[in-house]
């Protein structure tokens, strides 16, 4: 108990030491109270009324300046590296989904945590991750993709032991879009790109050539000619043979298409007026989409009056949320959504989050800490949980120092000790 007392005291002390009270707090407060001191009983009501008005003004002021104050909040004092058990956990076990971060003390080592937060394996890459390279893991962590300089698609893949996956040299063309996402089978990648024959939806296994179909999302080339492309795949379900494609460009109308992956047929197409949405997210199986109001990213006006979760098949409404709420992602069975309740895309604003049930909107868990999301959440393969990586507000590096938090569908959260490095 004494150890815990010391730890708790130290933790609060850190928080308090960062923001000590102003030196003349007592004098100021007493002076303010004295200023409100009634010399005559009849003035008491006046003082009360003034205090009420003052209180309302304070509340209105706080609400109206909330964003501005957040923008000036200091960096999280807890974001500096802390002592953590760093070790070589041996080869990662096969068949167990893992969430990977970089070992902060060994270049090129990746530590895999299982979905209870336990370290289960260490992947030793052939060489350290270059600061400018982007590395992505497959949903279960069995494959890693490397994108040189963070631009373009993955050009190299490693297996779950860190061995290079040889590339299929017979493939004639390789997708170059940076917007590759993992399909719901956790093995294929999906991408929309523009080889010579026009807009093309491709799926591929790491190291293998793509399987492609043309998609008539811009048949006359009008959108492409603007020079502002903005097409991306936000949902890709090989199980349901459905992909969700979007075109999201700030200041112009937004599009969302439901497309059959096997033949590229457009099953539905929806447009939205300019400036209404910040983005569209999709469930892994492509059955749900979330239309995130522009307000969720901090845009004051104009913006869609609500953030809406819809069934992609018929666009019927599943759940309506406040416009300041943005859906970050859905879990694997689409029963839960992790939402941001603060405009997290703005640097300097802590990411406040909530876990909600999609069908009821019931809030199961909240996070109101001082840190920001380092990347979009990862959904547990064949499970219900989310993994999020949080970083300090001041850390804008390509590979920030992060901690891992597993958000369980029953409203619990498991926080992994330490300050690791984002892939």
């Amino acid at each position: 108990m004494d150890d815990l007392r010391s730890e708790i005291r130290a933790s609060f002390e850190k928080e308090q030491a960062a923001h000590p009270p102003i030196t003349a707090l007592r004098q100021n407060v007493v002076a303010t109270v004295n200023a409100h001191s009634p010399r005559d009983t009849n003035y008491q009501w006046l003082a009360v009324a003034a205090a009420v008005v003052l209180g309302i003004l304070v509340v209105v002021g706080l609400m109206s300046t909330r964003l501005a104050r957040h923008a000036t909040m200091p960096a999280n004092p807890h974001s500096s590296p802390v002592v953590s058990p760093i070790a070589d956990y041996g080869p990662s076990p096969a068949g167990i989904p893992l969430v990977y971060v970089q070992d902060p003390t060994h270049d090129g080592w990746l530590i895999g945590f299982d979905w209870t937060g336990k370290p289960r394996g260490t992947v030793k890459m052939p060489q350290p991750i270059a600061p400018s390279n982007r590395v992505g893991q497959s949903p279960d962590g069995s494959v890693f993709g490397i994108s040189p300089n963070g631009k373009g698609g993955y050009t190299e893949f490693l297996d779950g032991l860190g061995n290079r996956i040889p590339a299929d040299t017979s493939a004639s063309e390789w997708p170059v879009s940076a917007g590759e996402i993992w399909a719901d089978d956790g093995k294929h990648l999906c991408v929309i790109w523009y080889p010579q024959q026009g807009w093309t939806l491709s799926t591929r296994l790491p190291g293998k050539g793509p399987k492609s179909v043309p998609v008539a999302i811009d048949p006359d080339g009008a959108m492409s000619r603007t020079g502002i492309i903005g097409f991306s795949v936000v949902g890709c379900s090989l199980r349901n043979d459905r992909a969700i494609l979007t075109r999201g460009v700030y200041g112009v109308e937004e599009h969302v298409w439901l497309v059959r992956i096997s033949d590229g047929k457009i099953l539905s197409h929806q447009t939205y007026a300019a400036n209404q949405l910040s983005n569209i997210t999709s469930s892994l199986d492509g059955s749900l989409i979330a239309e995130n109001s522009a307000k969720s990213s901090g845009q004051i006006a104009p913006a869609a009056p609500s953030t809406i979760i819809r069934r992609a098949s018929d666009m019927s409404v599943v759940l309506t949320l406040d416009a300041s709420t943005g859906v970050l992602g859905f879990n694997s069975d689409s029963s839960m959504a992790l939402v941001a309740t603060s405009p997290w895309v703005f640097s300097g604003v802590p990411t406040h989050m909530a876990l909600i049930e999609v069908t009821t909107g019931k809030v199961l868990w909240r996070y109101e800490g001082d840190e920001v999301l380092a990347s979009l959440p990862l959904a547990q393969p064949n499970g219900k949980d989310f993994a999020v990586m949080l970083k300090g507000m001041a850390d804008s590096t390509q590979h920030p120092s992060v901690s891992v938090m597993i958000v369980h569908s029953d409203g619990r959260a498991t926080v992994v000790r330490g300050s690791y490095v984002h892939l």
Partner: protein
Amino acid sequence: MSRAETGELNFDALIGPHLDAGYRTALAILRNPDEAHDAVQESALKAWRKLHQLREGSPARPWFLAIVANHCRSERRKHWWSVVRVPEVERADQEFQTDNVDIDRALATLPRDDRLALFLYFYLDLPLEEVGAVLGISPSGAKTRVYRAAKKLRPGLEMD
């Protein structure tokens, strides 16, 4: 000396020594120094208006800290409402793993009243009677609250 002047002196003598603890409590709840300073100012005004409710001989510290805590809870509710409106705001307790818990993060994600109980007991070193008074529960309830909150950080914990 007028009655008002006497009141001012009484207020300074009674509440003045606890303003620092009031600010620290507000900071622990709101986690924003500007809001914490506003909160302690507002709470001091409320305390001054309610000074007659403080019974003769009753300790002023838990009474004032309870006002601060209530004010902060009220502010937090306004903030949450301004941030997101969802059909239900029920909060499930969060539990944490024994070995992998970063105490800072674990504390940050505890339910607010649990966190406040730990703050009052472990940081401000308030006796359980005063912790209970601030939280509006009995001393035994405060002990349970502190124990339960600490157990979320260390599930195998035995209370002294």
